[in-house]
């Protein structure tokens, strides 16, 4: 009798274990490493600035919608000041382009439904510096040195901070703060806390 019970129970236990865990431990670890949401910042376009958006919004995680490409633009190479209004233009291997602005948390994203890009991708970022004494907003444009071959999660390579052995560092607008400088938007739903 016990043997019969075991025969019935074992497949059920295995099915429960398999169903409870996901398929990729590497991606599960990456998602877990993101940590919890920051208090006071709701899930949405302004959350988790600087983190790898596609860990959850890349089709594997539970984030919805799914993005083709997403990331965060900072003011300089090493600060934590998000830049609003930077225009990120992506061009895929078929020559189709899509431009999107960053929000006040520096975050930008392109939904996969709107732009199911054919990799590799060329990316450029155009930042408008803060308005100067003459009322002008000077623009700075940077083109990514390499193509994106497969991973649209900018922060999976562009980790926060400066360049290292295996990261070019965060996406940024200018080497040094301009005059007047970029500042954190105080009424932004996201960004540094």
């Amino acid at each position, binding site marked *: 009798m016990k043997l019969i019970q*075991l025969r019935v129970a074992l497949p059920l236990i295995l099915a429960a274990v398999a169903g409870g865990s996901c398929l990729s431990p590497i991606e599960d670890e990456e998602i877990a490493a993101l940590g919890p949401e920051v208090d006071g910042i709701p899930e949405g376009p302004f959350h988790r600035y600087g983190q790898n958006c596609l860990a959850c919004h890349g089709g594997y995680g539970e984030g919805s919608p799914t993005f083709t490409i997403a990331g965060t633009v900072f003011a300089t190479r090493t600060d934590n000041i998000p830049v609003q209004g930077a225009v990120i233009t992506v061009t895929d291997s078929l020559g189709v382009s899509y431009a999107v602005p960053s929000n006040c948390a520096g975050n930008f994203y392109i939904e996969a439904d709107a732009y199911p890009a054919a990799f590799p991708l060329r990316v450029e970022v155009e930042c408008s510096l803060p308005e100067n004494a003459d009322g002008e907003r000077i623009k700075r444009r940077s083109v990514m040195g*390499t193509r994106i071959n*497969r991973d649209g999660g900018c922060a*999976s390579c562009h980790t926060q901070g400066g*360049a290292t*052995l*295996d990261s070019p560092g965060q996406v940024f607008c200018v080497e040094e703060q301009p005059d007047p400088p970029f500042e954190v938007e105080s009424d932004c739903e996201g960004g540094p806390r």
Partner: protein
Amino acid sequence: MKLKRFLYITAIAVVALSPFVLAAGCLSESDQAAATFECPPDAGWPQVSQVLERKCGTLDCHGDRGRPFRLYGRNGSRLSEGDVVGDTDGTSDAELEENRLSTCALEPELMNAVRTEDAELETLTLLRKPLLLEAHKGGRVWLEDSPGYICLSSWITSGSTAVDGPACEAELSLP
């Protein structure tokens, strides 16, 4: 009933332990000995490496140091502490040599066989993947008449003949 239970538990134990038994049985001295293999010469390699770094060695592909066929480079992972991604100094000599060995060590025995003309060039995974003759996450990178493919394959067969420099240059000049 007891016999049935005994047989059931024994069967589970055999299934659970079989990978370890098989693994231990497969190891031999020859598996642990260092193997030698012939790698194509380093003449012309810097240009070939540059092609591979640009096309394959980005950080989200073979520039990721955890990936098979790992490539170092100026815009990919760096080898030495003190070097950072995007340095203006360019790919170092040590990185070039690591890339050369990484390229050969992907399938060393087969590389030997190709070099001695005992196997066809297109049997190498190194060439089959970019042609999409087998599954490749990065998709089709080249056709057989693409300058990048000609550049790489000319290096593999180089020795008595030289690396096809103009093909490498043509690949590097592409947008």
